[in-house]
């Protein structure tokens, strides 16, 4: 099928920086320029508060983006993350809600301690990840098809568990803590968790055999298998990792609003994919980086907040995201093309 031009991830022959580092720098520049433009055209946009808000409001997409980046590098898509976010939120609430006296069916849960509820929720998320792993890694069905299915399954479980609504009644105060611990200014603990995860992911990506195997699989799955990489297991692990990260996101988001809402996370899968693509990853595998994804997330954040500031019409968001992704893909390809000539 169509192969877009692919980038490399090391210093190139002539001693120039690698394509990946090059793209990251370009996208960082784009971020600065966009922020500057937004500051010129939007009153009160240029402020520390805005910058902090960008971080405070986009941490969830960064966490999801980590899993999606790894998968994209290995040549796979994950459209189920948004569904898992919704499901995890509802389940964590359901498991925690008191077991006996409920105000209504929606107030009645399993009455488990919060810690146990989190573990159990993450287990269910892992189960969805395993479904993905089974069908994609083992049966080799196209990842877009499988994950569209598991997206429905995950969100479906969330809807059934929340009876199509949300679970907020009777939740203990503890439920609302981890999503709301303030660090400084608007930055909450969730953002710090995202930052820590990013650092870990960067390390894994570049410095460990696990990360390397991900690139090997993305670059050539069959060669990787014949080189002794347990390809199916590895892809399976990546899907479970992605599901786990989505689960963590869902739990944090539920805690933040102190409610398990079954519609939460709708469209997050697209956002996660967009930021990863903005970061220079290619869907054909072998290329991409977590650092690029983080820059991509910030770009998307600037674009959507600027759109609100300018127009106050949310339908622009759809169009803008589409246009920005399109431009990013085309521009990155053009730049790499010229550079590698």
């Amino acid at each position: 099928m169509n192969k877009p031009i692919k980038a490399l991830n090391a210093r190139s022959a002539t001693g120039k920086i690698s394509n990946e580092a090059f793209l990251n720098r370009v996208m960082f520049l784009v971020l600065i320029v966009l922020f500057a433009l937004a500051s010129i055209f939007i009153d009160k946009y240029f402020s520390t508060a805005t910058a902090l808000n960008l971080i405070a409001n986009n941490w969830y997409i960064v966490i999801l983006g980590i899993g999606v980046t790894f998968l994209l590098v290995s040549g796979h898509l994950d459209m189920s993350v948004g569904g898992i976010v919704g499901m995890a939120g509802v389940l964590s609430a359901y498991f925690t809600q008191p077991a006996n006296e409920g105000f209504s069916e929606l107030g009645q849960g399993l009455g488990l301690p919060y810690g146990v509820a989190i573990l159990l929720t993450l287990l269910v998320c892992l189960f969805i990840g395993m479904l993905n792993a089974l069908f994609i890694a083992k049966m080799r069905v196209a990842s877009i098809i499988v994950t569209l299915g598991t997206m429905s399954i995950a969100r479906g479980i969330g809807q059934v568990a929340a009876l199509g609504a949300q679970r907020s009644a009777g939740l203990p105060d503890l439920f609302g803590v981890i999503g709301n611990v303030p660090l400084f200014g608007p930055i909450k603990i969730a953002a710090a968790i995202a930052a820590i995860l990013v650092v870990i992911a960067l390390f894994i990506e570049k410095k460990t055999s696990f990360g390397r195997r991900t690139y090997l699989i993305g670059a050539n799955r069959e060669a990787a298998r014949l080189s002794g990489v347990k390809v199916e297991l590895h892809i399976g692990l990546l899907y479970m990792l992605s599901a786990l990260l989505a689960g963590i996101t869902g739990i944090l988001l539920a805690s933040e609003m102190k409610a398990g809402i079954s519609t939460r996370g709708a469209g997050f899968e697209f956002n996660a994919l967009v930021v990863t693509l903005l970061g220079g990853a290619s869907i054909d595998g072998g290329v991409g980086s977590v650092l690029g994804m983080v820059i991509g997330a910030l770009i998307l954040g600037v674009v959507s907040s600027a759109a609100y500031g300018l127009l106050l019409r949310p339908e622009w968001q759809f169009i803008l995201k589409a246009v920005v992704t399109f431009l990013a893909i085309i521009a990155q390809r053009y730049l790499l093309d010229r550079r590698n000539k």
Partner: protein
Amino acid sequence: TAPAATTEEAPAAEAAATDAPAAEAAAPAEKTTEGMKIAYFVSTMANEFHQARAAAAIQYAKDKYGAEVVIMDGKSDDNTMINNVDMLATSDFDAAVLHVWQPDAVAPLVMNAIDSGVAMMTFFSPLADTGIPVFRSDEAGGSFAMGASAAEQWVAANPDKPIVTVQLGWPDHTEVKSGRTDPFVAGIESVVGAGNYTNLGCIDSKGSADATKEAMANILITNPDVNIIYSEAGDLTPGCMAALVDAGRGTMDNGVPTTEIVVSVDCPVSELKAIFDPSSSLKMSLGLPPIQTSEKIIDIIVGVYLGEIAQVSTPAEELFGEVYPVDFYKLQLSEVIAWYNQQFGTSLVEADILG
């Protein structure tokens, strides 16, 4: 606020009216409500008020009339709602209570269903063309009262900071506009007077907590001085509050507004907690009584079914239900709990709310 049927629409309604008895004549002479089947439309079950309303309808219809209520969830989706109405004509239902967002689109289908002997009424949105009975809650009155109360509190605490208000919800929905958005702003205006406040308008938050959070966060970037916020549904409010907390706001100094006052709708238990927590900036919510609402609706539809209430009339018969604005500044917790327990069938005590 009742939209009266215009004269040019009257002939259509009359035509329908003449059809209706014909259909009834075909049915068995004397009707009983025993075993009667009612399709009970709900625009979305993703809302606690609607869920409670649905549960109450099932219970009440069974206990009082021996009738069976089946919930038709519209899933916030026009296509689903319209499909559901379309299927009524060939269905096994004896009666249907509609709750749809596109009254114009379903009007012809409603006539079909009436022709095939299904008794019809509508909740929330009038189906003006059809002339079928409509039941609405008096949301406008409640919204107006809350707007006024919020404005009073803000002006008292922060006389130097002019009011900047924003509404989060559905800018494009006729009933939301006439029942919530506009009266709320009018309430504010009634306190401070025209021209003495800024209205950023109603921002579309696409009916989800996520979208509300995103919208609110972005509003705070460009309009950090916003101070009276009307979050127009219970399932949006968590998103609104999360964005405020993210921005280091969302709090109050022992009931005295410092950053903003947030007003909500539906008043689920979780909101009740926040409203009576003096350190949260969520201070009011428009309580709608689910049991009372449903009981009235079931009584009306049974009336229509038995022919006691006219199926169609010009203008359509419009009935109003009460609302209950829960207001930290105006009501005692004990009163609210009593109302809540009565309306939601719960057994809350003050300790549940105060933690």
